[in-house]
């Protein structure tokens, strides 16, 4: 794993010259509330950058804003991708540059089979590429190629197919919004392996997660709270800070974390 840049002190990373994706001072307001507040964040090629934070801290909103979703147009700040200012670009154009997003709750498509769905976009119907993507998420192509991407898939199957769709795209940078939610414990390893495989192939990955097991895949991490990035550094330090902040939050509510300060459940309970 490429952890050479991870700060042991938990302090902010030095700003890289070769960031693939860079958010600079992104701010978003909605209904009079700050959703994102001057967010700075960057991801380098071949790097998995974990994004942690409690529910409602703005992680998914940041993902949508980076992807250029129409409802998440930022008021301030810039997004740079592959050396280009993409702030004003629509999501289709960003995707064509190699940026993509796997949704936390993937859409379901009536009548569209897995083969068609994975063949959309850069994969361009290439069966070999589609089968490789399914195998990468431990789904047997023979069993899944003709399955509809609709309500007949379980939540976990749909999540894996979403990851396979991203993998088949061979993006330069993938934003994965909680790819581990709804995935059984045994399959987490498959998801982690897929993420590493993408990074090892040179792609950047922005990994939004609550789970310690998945955060362990990251080379670096940031912690979000109330729409702002409050810490960036090595993943271990950021995770420690996350647990600590969760514990403080729980105590402020007059409750005890159910698995102690260092246990992975501490963060999940608050989340």
């Amino acid at each position, binding site marked *: 794993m490429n952890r050479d840049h991870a700060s042991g002190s938990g302090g902010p990373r030095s700003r890289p010259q070769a960031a693939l994706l860079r958010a600079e001072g992104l701010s978003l307001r909605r209904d009079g509330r700050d959703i994102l507040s001057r967010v700075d964040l960057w991801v380098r090629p071949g790097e998995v950058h974990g994004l942690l934070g409690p529910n409602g801290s703005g992680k998914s909103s940041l993902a949508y804003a980076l992807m250029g979703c129409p409802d998440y147009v930022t008021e301030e700040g810039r997004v740079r991708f592959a050396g280009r200012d993409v702030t004003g670009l629509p999501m289709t154009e960003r995707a064509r540059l190699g940026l993509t997003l796997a949704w936390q709750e993937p859409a379901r498509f*009536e009548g569209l089979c897995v083969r068609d769905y994975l063949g959309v976009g850069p994969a361009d119907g290439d069966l070999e590429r589609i089968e490789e993507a399914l195998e990468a998420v431990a789904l047997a192509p023979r069993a899944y190629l003709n399955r509809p991407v609709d309500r007949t898939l379980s939540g976990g199957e749909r999540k894996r197919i979403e990851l396979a769709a991203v993998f088949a795209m061979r993006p330069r940078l993938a934003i994965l919004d909680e790819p581990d939610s709804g995935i059984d414990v045994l399959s987490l390893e498959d998801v982690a392996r897929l993420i590493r495989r993408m990074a090892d192939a040179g792609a950047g990955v922005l990994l939004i997660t609550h789970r310690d097991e998945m955060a362990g895949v990251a080379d670096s991490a940031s912690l979000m709270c109330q729409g702002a990035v409050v810490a960036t550094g090595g993943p271990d330090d950021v995770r420690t800070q996350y647990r600590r902040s969760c514990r403080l939050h729980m105590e402020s509510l007059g409750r005890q974390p159910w698995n102690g300060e260092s246990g992975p459940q501490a963060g999940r309970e608050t989340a």
Partner: protein
Amino acid sequence: MRARLGSHVQAAEPGWAAEYEAMLEAYREAGGDPEILSLPRLAALVVSANRVLASSEVPGVRFEAEERPNGILARITVAPGARPERPVHLCFGMLPPEGLQEIESHFEIGASADVRFLTHCTFPRATRLRHVMDATIHVGEGASMDYTEAHFHGPHGGIDVLPRASVQVEAGGRFVSTFSLVHGRVGRLEVDYDVSVGRNGLAELTTKAFGRADDHIGVNEVLHLDGEGARGMTKTRIAVRDEAVSEVSTTAEGNAPLARGHMDCAEIVRDRAVASNTPHVVVRDDRAHVTHEAAIGTVNRKELQTLMARGLDEDEAVDVIVRGMLR
């Protein structure tokens, strides 16, 4: 003339061979596979305008046809207990751009039979054409009938299509119908199905259509769930764009104990098109249960953005979603 037709696919009259070939070519151009008609042990009936061009029967499946001035009268009988290996193919169409085709058909599906019908209606050059299908269908006790009707129209839209069916499903019977008009222009479509279901019987009606320009789509489907434990569902999937209009009316009557009915309508509307859905729920027994759901409007944003995040522009993404829904 009423004729019992031959036992293998062949042009009924040598002089019609050219028209038969033209029909098959039109079917091929529309995306169908006419080679299917060459398969052995296949029951098929090919009708152009008011002429039976070809036919073939298999054991347990019998056709009788009578040619009329503007169409044909067909009796299709499936013997009790018959289970044809392959679907029965019915091909109807007209090659001239103008005219009238009236198909009156009577289906008798014997008790415990199990049969699938694939019906292709091809009108590649229609500019001023009317196609009327009047059917009575009797599905015997414990029998199963799958009926799929796909239309292939040309680009002009000058066609009226009026499929009408009165269906009786006896106790334990099963009737599953899929009507699809998604290739070429719709023109004016008026689907009118009336289905009665007996004890523990099942009926499922699926209608799919894609209207463009000034196409008009009308769907009127009525399910009478008359027998105890009868089940029925209507599923309507329609996309309209430009100035097309869609009007869907479905009725499900729960008339007996433990009858279960559901109506599911999804319509995608683009441009200046207009779509409406009117579900009628009627329950006449306090142990019956009928539900409905409808979603009419633009394409689901989440689906749209998911595809745009793969690099499709909005039009391409809508096309993928609509094609999926109408598949």
